């Protein structure tokens, strides 16, 4: 039983990160019906920008660990959001009227381009975040051991996801995003500037992906330019699991995928944990083709 709860906390911490990244996939898909394959690389960029800002500005020395990391997170979110908006402007917007496959190919190209840009700028070697930025303390509870940072990561993910959810549900801009997701043509007729909505989506999604990169860097320490691939794939899976295009679905899918992986590793086989996770995905898609909370399904790609 102890091991069960330990693995549950392990899974939730990993799942929180998957969920944050999955939001970016799901938002873009919701509005554009485009799977933004470059999203994983925006996550990588977040991790690298975080490292650069952290080491060059010594924020945590001036402001203390928590305020420093908070300021850092806001800066990373802003910068990665800008990269995302730029990506939309250069790689996707010129293809808005083209067949959907062209945009997908453009996304794949953008992914390769961004990954190699990071490699050329930062080098191919593993980069390491300075240690001891965040306190290393852990909580021991009923024989469970939970590092404080893991709890913080989970809380931060949930706070950001909830904030996004309320933003989408309750504000005017959020309503415009939802309207554009339902029908772009009709939204345009209602006076919504769809291109601005898409820009907004490409600011928000990458910002969350970028801050997930920062969290991975701060907690796991080791980053490299290929890290976006695995996380991107998992987050994409999480988005499908929860129902792509659906924001609460991405959150549920992410957390669930993390837990399934941890439980699969714990009780079945470590080597097969990804296979187990994908089997669960297939089962869920057979039973609920739209994902757990989804309304729509990817028609192509």
């Amino acid at each position, binding site marked *: 039983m102890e*091991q069960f709860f*330990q*693995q549950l906390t*392990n*899974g939730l*911490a*990993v799942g929180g990160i998957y969920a944050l990244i999955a939001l970016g996939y799901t938002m873009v898909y919701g509005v554009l019906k485009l799977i933004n394959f470059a999203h994983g690389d925006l996550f990588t960029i977040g991790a690298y920008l975080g490292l650069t800002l952290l080491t060059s500005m010594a924020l945590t020395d001036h402001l203390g660990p928590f305020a420093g990391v908070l300021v850092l997170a806001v800066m990373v979110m802003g910068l990665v959001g800008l990269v995302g908006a730029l990506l939309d402007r250069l790689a996707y917007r010129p293809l808005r009227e083209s067949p959907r496959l062209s945009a997908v190919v453009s996304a794949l190209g953008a992914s390769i381009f961004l990954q*190699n840009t990071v*490699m050329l700028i930062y*080098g*191919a*070697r*593993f980069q*390491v975040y300075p*240690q001891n930025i965040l306190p*290393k303390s*852990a909580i021991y509870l009923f024989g469970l*051991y939970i*590092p404080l940072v893991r709890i913080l990561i989970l809380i931060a993910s949930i706070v950001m996801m909830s904030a996004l959810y309320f933003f989408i549900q309750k504000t005017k801009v959020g309503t415009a995003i939802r309207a554009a997701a339902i029908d772009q043509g009709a939204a345009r007729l209602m006076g919504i500037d769809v291109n601005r909505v898409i820009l907004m989506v490409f600011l928000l999604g990458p910002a969350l992906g970028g801050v997930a990169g920062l969290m*991975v860097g701060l907690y*796991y*320490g*080791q980053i*490299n330019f*290929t*890290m976006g*691939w*695995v*996380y991107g794939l998992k987050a994409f899976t999480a988005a499908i699991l929860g129902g792509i295009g659906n924001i609460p679905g991405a959150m549920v899918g992410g957390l669930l995928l993390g837990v399934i*992986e*941890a439980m699969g*590793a*714990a009780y079945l*086989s*470590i*080597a097969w*944990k*990804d296979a187990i996770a994908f089997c669960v995905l297939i089962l869920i898609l057979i039973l609920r083709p739209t994902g757990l909370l989804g309304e729509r399904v990817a028609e192509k790609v």
Partner: protein
Amino acid sequence: MKKLFFVALAMSLMLGSVYAAEPPKIGLMGPMTGSWASEGQEMKQVADLLAEELNAKGGLLGQQVVVVSEDDGGDPRTAALAAQRLATQGVVAVVGTYGSSVCEAAQNIYDEAKIIQIANGSTAIRLSEKGLKYFFRTCPRDDEQAKVGAQTIEKLGFKKVAVLHDNTTYAKGLADEAKALLEGKAGIEIVFFEAITPGERDYSAILTKLKSANPDVVFFTGYYPEAGLLLRQKKEMNWNVPFMGGDATNNPDLVKIAGKDAAAGFYFLSAPLPKDLPSEEAKQFLEAFSKKYGNPPNSIYAVLAGDGFRVITHAIAQTGSTDPDKLADYLHNEIKDFPGLTGKISFNEKGDRDGEVYRVYEVNEEGQFILMP
């Protein structure tokens, strides 16, 4: 008259292209991108430096040697394409590559094209068991590594051993070999044998499960990025079990990733590190490398790639030929105790390097790699 001139010109051009032999090209295939990119880029630095030195001394067969490098991305599919590109560029021999599964994808392409391949980091046993005539390697084999690993575990008095690999050709081969050897030893029990997925960041689920098996030592046969993370997360769990790694954990980045306090006490098997190479050739080489690039080489595999380059250029110079059959014959039979950077080099009939190469290292409190006696 004019016509005659043109005929003469055409003939001289034709003859010219026959007699002016092309400059000998040596291919280098390594992971210039991908997660092992630091290995591949250092391999290229070493090959470039050695080619420069050789050309300054007059080159090979009266020509300047050209190094043609191709990126295998640390990925078997990319490697097959890289091998085909090298084969069409008329290289005499190829040095590389690092990963065994990557090497395996390229082997047959070189063999069919009759190109000598000298691998520098691919230690999987089965690579040289296929009877490929043109395949050689300067790195040792995993059966020797497993032997040294099992001996070390026995010597250090560990009874319950956990073996963890990452399902790559190399890591799985080494893990299987070590498991078979350890099971044959009295009093030693394998309590855990599983594979992780490389390229991930969070191994806490695996470590939690591993801990419940309660081993005395964990033998991880995968590569350094994962080893560093495992050590770091193990430390975070306050779990003090000693870890031992195979030769793919031998990279200073391991300590950077794990952090000095988490890496301290980690054992790993490896061919001697560049800094521990005793020979005069090695000292000169290390000096020249530091002078050109500002730091000594990090990885022994880059130096082993250098040995591959030196052996093949030596063979070309000695035989005075770029004929693959002559060269393969020379490498198999003629070359004996060639003074390599990493010690004496001879090849057996399978193309494997003769002699015992592996040592045991321990990481100390400062994060340095200390050769164990």
